């Protein structure tokens, strides 16, 4: 069965600094990897996905993620953080089926 781990409950960065939110995964076959963001009292919004191809994936709001097969990781990155990026971020994985598994989430706080 597929699973993901987000090793950090909380990430704090200063506005303008680069940010990284970490994710590692486990699947039996080829992974389909996703990042979602959740703002307060809202549902999840899709940010980006890796299916195949280039290991660096670009998504919404200036976010990108790097797929690393040898380290089974899919870390979310942004070169310059904004206060408005403060939210809860979820990594998710599929193994080719229709269902998806989510990590526990990482709360990102960007301070002015």
């Amino acid at each position: 069965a597929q699973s993901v781990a987000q090793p950090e409950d909380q990430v704090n960065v200063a506005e303008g600094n680069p940010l990284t939110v970490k994710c590692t995964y486990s699947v039996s076959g080829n992974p389909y990897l996703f990042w979602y963001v959740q703002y307060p009292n809202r549902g999840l919004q899709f940010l980006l996905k890796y299916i195949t191809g280039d290991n660096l994936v670009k998504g919404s709001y200036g976010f990108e993620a790097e797929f690393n097969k040898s380290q089974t990781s899919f870390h979310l990155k942004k070169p310059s953080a904004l206060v408005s990026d403060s939210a809860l971020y979820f990594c998710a994985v599929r193994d080719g089926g229709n269902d998806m598994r989510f990590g526990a989430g990482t709360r990102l706080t960007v301070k002015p």
Partner: protein
Amino acid sequence: DVKVTQSSRYLVKRTGEKVFLECVQDMDHENMFWYRQDPGLGLRLIYFSYDVKMKEKGDIPEGYSVSREKKERFSLILESASTNQTSMYLCASSFWGSYEQYFGPGTRLTVT
């Protein structure tokens, strides 16, 4: 834009009551999902459906049932609500074989 709506944003029920949570999507998606979201646990899959009248158990189906009589509607049923079912419930949908899921705004259920 894809729209997934949930019948209530906030719901308060008493222990032992039967509870219905409704989800409707307007994009003709084949797949629909119910998750619960708890702090520190992320999203956990309760049930999903890939066609009308079809259902599959997720990771935590105990105490829940589902109904999908029409393609656009997927209902989550708590037969006899208990306090440990107090949670945020998120509905999502996707096309068959597609990758990203689209989420509703969530229903925060409190069982007293």
